[in-house]
């Protein structure tokens, strides 16, 4: 049995089972989802690559499914698992209604299955189908609480996601017309040396669709509303993995498997990446709502990944993948902290907060770790990934863009310092005198995510050898 196919079937069967009309099953949902995510994380870390694709024994014909796992996929599978492990306790703890908790868990499992599929397919149309699974799941998740803002955020996400899907589907249809099949290998073979207009239009359209899904400026309109309006656990999930799996990861996969590393789109990606970084950072400055500020920060960081991809070198792609992983970790961390603050204080307005670190020490400390990592302060993980990104961009000859990326780190540091000062440091605001630290379901994800950030940063040489250099090797 191809181990990879398990990552799609086990969640699917589990979800069908959980929805059978037996009362006790609903209580098992949380444990099931957490176990599934933990197993996925363990497999991604410990299972050696050849075993992923081996056919152990025939299993109802499932071994013929065209799913393969390479080093790039393992990064996404690990990221999905870690973010799920963080989002599930937060979401279940903040949601009081039992039915809605169950729906949250089922939709999260579905979204994770979709993202696992995106990681493992090698066919453009299958990629599209699994992207749709994620899109529908996330749209419903954003609107989970059915309040006005949630519905609006979900609707915006739905409309823009649908537009992106249509553009992607048109591109896939054009590529199918010109190459006869939608598999990565066939399309890649067709594109080599092909200079006619139709495939180029198709590829450009596909990239536009992916940029909309990834929240790259100027297609980021849906992102702040969707992240802010979503309930706590869903925000963690979305910020951690949604725009990455469906947007930038697919973009990386496109460059690695279909287009080849160096391509005419390089210049466009560099430009889009740079304006995303700068505009996201500048927009984050003016925000009073904690989650909205984090949403713009996410947009900005997504720009680093796109910029690194635009560098065109193997180091650039390795940097993009590494920053994708790091961003998932520290952004999920920040959203868990925001959820913790909102849960205990009842507000997201940073102007009325102050001195919360005195009453919520763990949340405050982990928030410091996360924002230092985002700003790229050594020896945290974010420093290394940003360093690789900037070195890759500089090395490819685009000095101006590298300087822009470097200076934007200052902007990042500035708005995060402002956030930290307003929320956690300074004198304790009167109305929050009796606020207490959040309970375990928040504390455990906070601490674990911080430890990962610190660990990946401090043990970077190990990460470099086992993580980054192998990614470079798959690019040849």
């Amino acid at each position, binding site marked *: 049995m191809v181990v990879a196919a398990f990552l799609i079937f086990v969640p699917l069967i589990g979800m069908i089972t959980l929805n059978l009309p037996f009362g006790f099953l609903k209580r098992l949902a949380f444990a099931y989802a957490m176990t599934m995510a933990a197993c996925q994380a363990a497999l991604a870390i410990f299972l050696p690559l050849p075993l992923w694709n081996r056919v152990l024994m025939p299993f109802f014909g499932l071994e013929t499914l065209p799913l393969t796992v390479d080093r790039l996929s393992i990064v996404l599978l690990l990221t999905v698992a870690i973010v799920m492990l963080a989002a599930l306790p937060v979401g279940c703890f903040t949601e009081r209604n039992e039915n809605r908790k169950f729906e949250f868990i089922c939709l999260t499992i579905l979204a994770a299955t979709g993202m696992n599929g995106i990681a493992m397919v090698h066919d453009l149309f299958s990629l599209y189908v699994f992207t749709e699974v994620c899109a529908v799941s996330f749209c419903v998740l954003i609107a989970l609480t059915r309040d006005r803002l949630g519905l609006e955020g979900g609707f915006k996400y739905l409309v823009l996601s649908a537009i992106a899907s249509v553009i992607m589907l048109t591109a896939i249809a054009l590529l199918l017309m010109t190459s006869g099949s939608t598999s990565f290998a066939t399309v890649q073979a067709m594109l080599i040396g092909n200079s006619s207009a139709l495939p180029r239009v198709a590829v450009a359209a596909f990239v536009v669709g992916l940029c909309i899904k990834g929240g790259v400026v100027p297609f980021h309109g849906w992102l702040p509303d969707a992240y802010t309006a979503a309930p706590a656990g869903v925000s963690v999930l979305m910020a951690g993995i949604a725009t990455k799996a469906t947007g930038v990861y697919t973009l990386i996969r496109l460059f690695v498997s279909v287009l080849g590393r160096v391509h005419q789109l390089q210049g466009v990606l560099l430009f889009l990446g740079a304006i995303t970084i700068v505009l996201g950072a500048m927009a984050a400055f003016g925000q009073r709502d904690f989650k909205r500020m984090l949403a713009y920060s996410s947009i900005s960081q997504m720009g680093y990944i796109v910029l690194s991809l635009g560098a065109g070198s193997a180091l650039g792609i390795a940097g993009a993948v590494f920053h994708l992983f790091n961003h998932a970790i520290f952004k999920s961390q920040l959203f868990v902290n925001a959820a913790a603050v909102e849960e205990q204080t009842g507000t997201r307005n940073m102007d*009325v907060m102050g001195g919360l670190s005195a009453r919520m020490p763990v949340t405050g400390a982990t928030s410091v770790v996360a924002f230092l990592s985002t700003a790229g302060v050594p020896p945290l993980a974010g420093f290394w990934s940003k360093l690789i990104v900037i070195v890759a961009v500089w090395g490819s000859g685009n000095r101006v863009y590298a300087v822009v990326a470097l200076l934007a780190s200052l902007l990042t540091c500035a708005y995060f310092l402002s956030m930290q000062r307003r929320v956690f440091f300074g004198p304790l605001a009167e109305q929050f005198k009796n606020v207490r630290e959040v309970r375990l379901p928040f504390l455990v994800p906070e601490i674990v995510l911080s430890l990962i950030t610190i660990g990946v940063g401090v043990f970077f040489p190990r990460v470099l050898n086992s993580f980054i250099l192998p990614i470079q090797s798959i690019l040849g």
Partner: protein
Amino acid sequence: MVINLVLLGVLLITALRAVMKRDIVKSAIALALTSIILSALMFRLGSPLAAVFELSVCGGLITVIFMCAISLTKPQVSRQEDEEVNTHSRHFGVLMVLLIAAAGVLLMVGIPAGTVLPQAAADADARSVLWNERQLDLLGQTLVIFAGFFGILVLFKEGVPRVEKNGAARMRDDLSGELEPDDTVTGEEVHSEPSAGCSKVKAEKVCE
């Protein structure tokens, strides 16, 4: 070719009508018409199997389900609301012209001269392609159906109370995150993002 273009134009009209009509029944009928014209196009483009599916499922089955749901729930749309559509008609016309112009541009720019487009495969191949080569997509489709099922459960189930968090109930409705709607900063237009416009609860009363 000309017939295809005419069919596309009519498709555009019916699709826009389906979206812009306030009366659900008229909207559903327009959707059915859209499906019928789409299946006619598919026949002309050489995919009879896809056309038959489109006609029977989208043009037939889904319309029947819509009509059942409408007749069971009997949503009331006043005459006045339906007349409001007429004020939107000019947007409708402009939108159509824009879409046709965009399509025209794409047609002229898109396919270079001398491109040989592969023909659609014969019917027998379509069935074997679906079941033998594209099993993964069928699996993905199953997942989408599940997601849709949960979507309906989440969004439309009756009797589920709106979310109330202890003491933090109003936070979810207020983008600016103020503690109380009648707090010290009333009278001040609080916007985190100017472009979010009339979506805020406070401004709602002004805008609607």
